């Protein structure tokens, strides 16, 4: 009994000690378009991606740093769990902040909460992926151009296969979670561009759920299914999905890139992807980096809260990244 109590007391003490240490000190304010504007007394509920996700962690960092000089109070309600996000969003509506800034994890599940926010008179700004079409007119948005990201991936594959002199080519695709509009929009752009080169076709498309481990496992099986002569290119929707494809292909005896190797592309960049492009393995990727969209979202927040009436929806300009221009985007893509 004594040992149990001691353990409980030690655990409680540790918890209190950690709590007493407080959160991280605010990072120094960067210079930017938000400095010099006072939003003191205004409040934002940030119902964004959680810090457990590297993309979300860097977005949250840059977004918070950009707004820090304005004095606006940001309530951290971030999460990576769709169910928790609905709860946190409803809590945010109840607190009636000046603005809810949200990145939607489940478009369908978030439709009703967004309608509730509208009924309660709480404005909502969606960033990154779009909301459910039924509430698209009820929110403001700063969106990634996911269709363009898909187009760039197809361009990379077509360019890579043509450079190898191939008249035909079979492609495997490992997508993010298929129920997400982000994934659907990327595939829409990908298929649109691929249709311009009918000699290249998708032979298998699997949902890898934005999971690097699952991407590797599925890649191993698909490469075995189609064999070395049956796959000439692969599209992993994020760098951390494309790199396991490369690893699986290497272990299966495929050559990567070069004159006759497997062409692998991604469609949103991370440091590992940039390194892989430099190493001549990943053919290409695209931006959709968290820093750029965080800055644009923070700028939008300032314009909205200072009554400048920004357009209802803005789209972040995305860029295609290949070996030809990787140096230009290396820094931008190396924060997550």
């Amino acid at each position, binding site marked *: 009994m004594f040992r149990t109590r001691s353990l409980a007391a030690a655990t409680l003490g540790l918890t209190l000690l950690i709590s007493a240490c407080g959160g991280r000190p605010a990072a120094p304010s960067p210079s930017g378009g938000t400095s010099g504007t006072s939003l003191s007394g205004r409040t934002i509920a940030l119902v964004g991606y959680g810090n457990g*996700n590297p993309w979300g962690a860097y977005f949250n960092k840059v977004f918070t740093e950009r707004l820090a000089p304005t004095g606006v109070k940001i309530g951290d309600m971030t999460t990576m769990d769709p169910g928790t996000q609905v709860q946190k969003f409803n809590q945010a509506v109840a607190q009636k902040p000046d603005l809810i800034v949200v990145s939607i994890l489940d478009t369908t599940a978030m439709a009703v909460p967004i309608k509730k926010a509208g009924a309660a008179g709480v404005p909502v700004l969606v960033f990154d992926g779009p909301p459910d079409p039924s509430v698209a007119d009820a929110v403001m948005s700063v969106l990634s151009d996911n269709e363009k990201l898909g187009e760039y991936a197809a361009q990379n594959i077509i360019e890579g296969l043509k450079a190898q002199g191939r008249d035909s080519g079979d492609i495997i695709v490992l997508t993010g979670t298929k129920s997400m509009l982000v994934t659907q929009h990327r595939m829409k752009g990908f298929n649109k561009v691929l249709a311009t080169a009918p000699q290249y076709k998708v032979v298998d498309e699997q949902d890898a759920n934005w999971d690097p481990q699952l991407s590797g496992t599925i890649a191993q099986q698909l490469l075995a*299914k189609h064999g070395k002569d049956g796959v000439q290119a692969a599209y992993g929707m994020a760098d951390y999905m494309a790199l396991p494809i490369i*690893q699986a292909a290497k272990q299966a005896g495929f050559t990567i890139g070069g004159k006759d190797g497997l062409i692998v592309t991604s469609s949103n960049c991370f440091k590992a992807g940039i390194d892989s492009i430099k190493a001549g393995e990943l053919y290409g990727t695209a931006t959709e980096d968290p820093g750029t969209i965080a800055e644009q979202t923070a700028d939008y927040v300032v314009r909205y809260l200072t009554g400048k009436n920004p357009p209802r929806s803005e789209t972040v300009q995305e860029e295609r990244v290949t070996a030809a221009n990787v140096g230009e985007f290396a820094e931008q893509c190396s924060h997550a």
Partner: protein
Amino acid sequence: MTAETGAVAADGSARRWPPRVVTAGLAVILLALLLIPAVTTPRFLTLDNARAILASAAFVGITSVGATMVMIAGSGVSLATSQIATVVAMFFLGTQHLGLGAALLIALAAGVALNAFQGAVIGYWKADPIVLTIAGGFAIGGAATWFSGGTTVYPGARGFEVLNATPLGLPLAVYVLLAVTVVVEWTLRRTTAGRQMYLVGENRAAARAAGLPVGRVTVLAWAVSGACVALTGVFLASFTTSATVTLGGTLTLDAIAAVLVGGTAISGGHGSAVRTLGGAVLISVISDVLLLRGYSTGVQILVKGVLVLTVVLVVHVRSGRGRR
């Protein structure tokens, strides 16, 4: 009617199925599941596909073989496996600049320490494994997010690439899976500690009353399991070349599924590492067949769930009834 039949007794309860019958039954099911698709699925019976099946079973297999020891020792399951594998992967990649050997040692030490600590709390303080490992998972995952700031951990050197080697065409992780299975099976069958794990798992109170070192045995089982989780984290990190706090993915539930499909009793006292290896390979075979036949990832997960449920119902519930 003998105790070997597993038939219904006069009081209505079923007698326990002996391990040999369970093993034979599972072997027959496995064989049927291998033969039917072999005949009907194009490209199933190829060397490349066999290699892919083994490769895709390796990561989960290594963890599940270690988890078998924990389950046999009566500690049920660990729900913090993914988080520990993730932290180990971060340690491994983050210490690459110290050299591959040092990074491996640090990773293994981290995995063993984190798991053995939980084993100590369960073995010596009788904590509930489910409650403890849920709390442990949150604490470890939270600490990893706190210290890393959510950012991806990248290696400072590329020494880990040797772990992606494919001697004789098979990934190194497959050989490690086989080696780990042999070592764990040998430990369970041939050592005093192994036999004590079965006894502790069968009846903890009786084992304690008989003077067995219940706490020490439990810690040992969790420490070995931690080493296996660490090996998985190391191979995962090497495969993906970077580590985020979500790297472990569904490893926790996948490993539990493999152990259960292998027929190890969740209540403890029965099971084997070899059968768990069979469970891991069986799940991989089924996923592979479904993929070859064009079924989606969702269907694969659904079938895996149905398979686990079936095994739990057929093996565990019926054998449990016999114990009353």
